């Protein structure tokens, strides 16, 4: 009996120590609430009602250019952008896999921009995608496949190992969002209203290699199979970003792939005029991403394609969903009107 109590006491001490460690760890890790807010995007999905018929997956070319609220307003489509900065194809694959553990959309739209990268780009980008993911098999997969040489798996398990130096840089944000979070997107869409027109573009560089890496095809195959196995329509898209340059050589490879696999590919760069995008006012960063007016044009255009070709539900007529979107639209419309 006495021995049991001793063991129990030791266990309590160890648990308290781990709790203290977790609290300190939480304090020093970035909150992504008002700075580097992109690091919080991945987690904004978890609190959602999982009723999306369309899921967008990819990098900034998704979360800056597609506004799910416009898809809903135009055609009653429910959708969410699961986008993170510089999202790599194996990350997209794991994020899709994770999404399918929550819900089964009718359509998955994947940004093909990620195919340009066949190895991890930097720890900074990894952190923005991974830090705020819920623990799951997919998170473990993403960490293991994304780590650069200098990173360790343990630093993702124990953020204190990575962020202990932030101890001296803690701000009010770290206290305010210690047990709280701040949502910065509208169903995954990052609203930017500034205007910075396209003026001078840098020289179009020759590349060392235009061939997508084998690993990219491996994960693209995985995504394709995942969609086919779940009876989901997969659409590959290239956002209408005029910089960084998108090359003919890339397009040819994607066209070959979709032809072989019976998938649809839309390169929005080819139909900029048809969409109505005006790069003297529809971009906030000289053509890399669309601003609100540009994203609205693209989203309305895409909503019609989705509605016409994919038999999606008009949720504006469905009471429980429209009630949720009524609140979402109030917040969205308010943000649209704010200076």
């Amino acid at each position, binding site marked *: 009996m006495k021995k049991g109590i001793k063991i129990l006491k030791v266990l309590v*001490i*160890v648990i308290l120590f781990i709790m203290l460690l977790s609290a300190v760890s939480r304090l020093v890790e970035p909150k992504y609430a008002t700075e580097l807010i992109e690091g919080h995007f991945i987690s904004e999905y978890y609190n959602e009602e999982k009723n999306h018929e369309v899921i967008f997956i990819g*990098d900034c070319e998704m979360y800056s250019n597609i506004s799910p609220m416009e898809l809903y307003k135009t055609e009653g489509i429910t959708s969410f952008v699961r986008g993170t900065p510089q999202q790599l194809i194996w990350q997209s694959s794991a994020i899709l896999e994770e999404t399918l553990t929550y819900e089964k959309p009718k359509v998955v739209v994947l940004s093909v921009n990620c195919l340009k990268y066949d190895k991890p780009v930097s720890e900074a980008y990894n952190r923005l995608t991974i830090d705020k993911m819920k623990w799951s098999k997919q998170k473990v997969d993403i960490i293991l496949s994304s780590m650069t040489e200098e990173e360790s798996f*343990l*630093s993702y398990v124990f953020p204190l190992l990575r962020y202990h130096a932030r101890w001296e840089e803690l701000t009010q944000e770290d206290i305010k969002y210690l047990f709280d979070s701040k949502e910065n997107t509208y169903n995954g869409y990052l609203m930017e209203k500034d205007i910075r027109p396209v003026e001078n573009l840098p*020289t179009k560089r*020759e590349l060392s290699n235009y061939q997508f890496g084998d690993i990219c095809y491996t994960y693209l195959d995985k995504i394709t199979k995942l969609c086919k196995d779940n009876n989901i329509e997969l659409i590959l898209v290239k956002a209408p970003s005029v910089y960084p340059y998108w090359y003919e050589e890339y397009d040819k490879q994607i066209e070959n792939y979709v032809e072989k696999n019976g998938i649809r590919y839309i390169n929005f760069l080819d139909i900029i005029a048809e969409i109505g995008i005006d790069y003297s006012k529809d971009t906030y960063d000289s053509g890399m991403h669309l601003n609100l007016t540009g994203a609205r044009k693209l989203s309305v255009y895409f909503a019609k394609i989705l509605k016409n070709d994919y038999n999606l539900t008009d949720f504006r007529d469905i009471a429980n969903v429209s009630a949720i979107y009524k609140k979402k639209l109030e917040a969205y419309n308010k943000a649209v009107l704010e200076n």
Partner: protein
Amino acid sequence: MKKGIIIVIIVVILAVIIGGIVLINSNNSSNNADAMQSETFIFKINGQEVKMGQNLLDLNLPETSNVYEAESCAFDGIEKTYTYDNYDITTCPENGVEKILNVYISHGEESTPEGIRVGDTVEDMKQAYGEDFKTADVSYIYTKGHTTLTFVTNGDVISSIEYSLIAD
């Protein structure tokens, strides 16, 4: 008394483990910083050495009105590409400085300090830089420290040259 000793031992062991890992992590960071300072490929503009990773503002470069600016996806601040007649320089913000990420040479008027310019042959390149390169499609890539020097070719002729900082 025994209980107290056991608890102290457990706490000390845990603290040593955590502290040790933190220390190893710190050492890795400082080793990485040292590596960044090691030898790199160097480009020259008007006699000034241009090293990848250095602060662009430390250099006295010619004026250009062709500067492409864009918000960085992963860092606070603006990424910039300065376009000159014969080359482009791209920078990203880091700790209040404009870190040079790459220099892209697209015209034959500009040469590397080793004398190779756009329009020279692959043989010229090999004589200047040796044969310790990797190839990718139509490119020859030399690596030194945290930088690469890439020669893109069209047939046997160099069509562009790029100095790049290897991402952290």
